[in-house]
């Protein structure tokens, strides 16, 4: 089964969309261009620290604030393979699922995984492994309906293929 593996970038609670992608950058729809400014609200050059495949590990209420889908796109465009958080804000949660950005909810992983730890994720099983410490965590299952959207790689594919 295909697994994601990458370095963890650890963030705190309430990482809002103005931190993820400040509004002033919302003049492009290109995910790579957006990705260059990922987390510019936290650190102007944050995106430069990202290697393709890296994972974000964050606290509560990740993605709160604006409905801007550009936030999920910027994360994808910067090369992040998955966001693990204690909990997600609702619009960001929808956006990530809709564009096929993997997200997993796990308060235990969010607390225990350290910044810089190597993490392996099995999306199908919702299993998160901290390779640096040896700990494993189980994330919340998606509701069936969401799982279908995820299995199709996003909302557009789901709607096209399911002929709803």
């Amino acid at each position, binding site marked *: 089964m295909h697994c994601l593996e990458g370095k963890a970038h650890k963030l705190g609670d309430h990482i809002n969309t103005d931190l993820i992608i400040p509004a002033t950058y919302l*003049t492009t729809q290109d995910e790579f261009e957006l990705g260059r400014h990922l987390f510019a609200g936290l650190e102007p050059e944050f995106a430069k620290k990202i290697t393709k495949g890296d994972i974000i590990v964050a606290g509560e209420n990740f993605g709160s604030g604006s*409905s801007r*889908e550009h936030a999920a796109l910027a994360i994808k465009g910067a090369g992040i393979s998955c966001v693990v958080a204690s909990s997600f804000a609702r619009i960001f949660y929808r*956006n990530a699922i809709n564009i096929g950005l993997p997200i997993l909810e796990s308060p235990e992983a969010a607390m225990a995984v350290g910044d810089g730890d190597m993490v392996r994720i099995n999306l199908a099983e919702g299993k998160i492994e901290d390779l640096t410490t040896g700990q494993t965590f189980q994330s919340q299952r998606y509701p069936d309906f969401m799982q279908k959207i995820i299995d199709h790689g996003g909302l557009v594919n789901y709607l096209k293929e399911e002929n709803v």
Partner: protein
Amino acid sequence: MSVTRKIIAEHAGRESVKPGEYAFVPVDLVLANDVTAPLAIDEFEKFDMEVFSRDKIVFVLDHFTPNRDIASAEQCSYVRQFALKKEIVHFYEGGLCGIEHVLLPEEGLIRPGSIVVGGDSHTCTYGALGSFATGMGSTDIGAAMAFGKAWLRVPEAILVRIKGKFRRWVGGKDLILKLIGMIGVDGATYRSLEFTGDGLASLGIDARFTVANMVVEAGAKNGMFPVDEKTLDYLNSVGIQCDQMDIEPDQFGYSAEIGIDLDELSPQVALPPTPENSVPVEDAPHVRLDQVVIGSCTNGRISDLRQAAEVIKGKKVARGLRLIVIPGSPRVYKQALKEGLIEILLDAGAVISPPTCGPCLGGHMGVLAAGEKALATTNRNFVGRMGHKESEVYLCNPAVAAASSVTGTITDPAEIV
């Protein structure tokens, strides 16, 4: 069921819906702006379908307009071309354009009992008129443009019971800041916030728009007000006839109940860096302000400008401070002109901006430099919200904003009027 669930059930063609269930429902209105529409259009084109309706899709070019730079001009151009090609009826820009959540009710586009989805988190504003209105991302909006439907997870609801009467200089903004302070920025995540109680008599329609506007800052999916005489008066004035709708505290409809007494409420100020950091104005720090903004989809309506003008009349903006006033729509602007409010504000030394979201999200028309502090009637004060990440934003109501623009520091209007 909560009112929100009743609306969802009706649209889904079901007797009832339970929290946590999923429904793919037809929607009555689909909204996007110059920032969210381009992406929504791209997603829409992937379906290779026609738009589901020419008159249930609304584009409002309000965020980075009048065009703030070439990239923004190109975004507007992209949306404009699409709107022309698809013969979209409700396309707003230039002199017809206002801040979307001020404009749409004025245009008679929002009906009680409707479902409105918008590519903007403050779409929840329309809950003031008894509509189930919620913000979504561009892919959801693109799909809604094609199918006229949206997938929803049915929310639980919290009942907010209001009693008492607003004191002088206290209004809707203070009520919602107080509520967010009580429950936190994720206190209502995935829930509806439905308002009831005798205290609602104190809330005019503009105050209800303000309250419903900021429910998203507590993580809520939507806000909901009853449709009472005030709502009916407003709806009649924009050409809509409909029935009253009460919000009854049915014990199964609500998972929690919160009470707020307006008699005890003072003007609130939300300290940076989060809207939940609200304190009574008397406890706000005496910071030196560089900029004050009165406007936005939260407080850019005629009542807000009247309040500001009443406080500032005959006084002058403090030296070294920029006061920027943004009427929320052409109608608001014109009404303010007629009532002499614009002259009062100009005489005080305010900058009058065209209707735009502008500085609220650090776009244009009043961006902050490092170290600057602004007091604003907007809805968010996250780090870097209005400009440099080393600037700060405090949130308040229009009366406090006006008073503070005179003294140069956060001030209770009662101290200077």
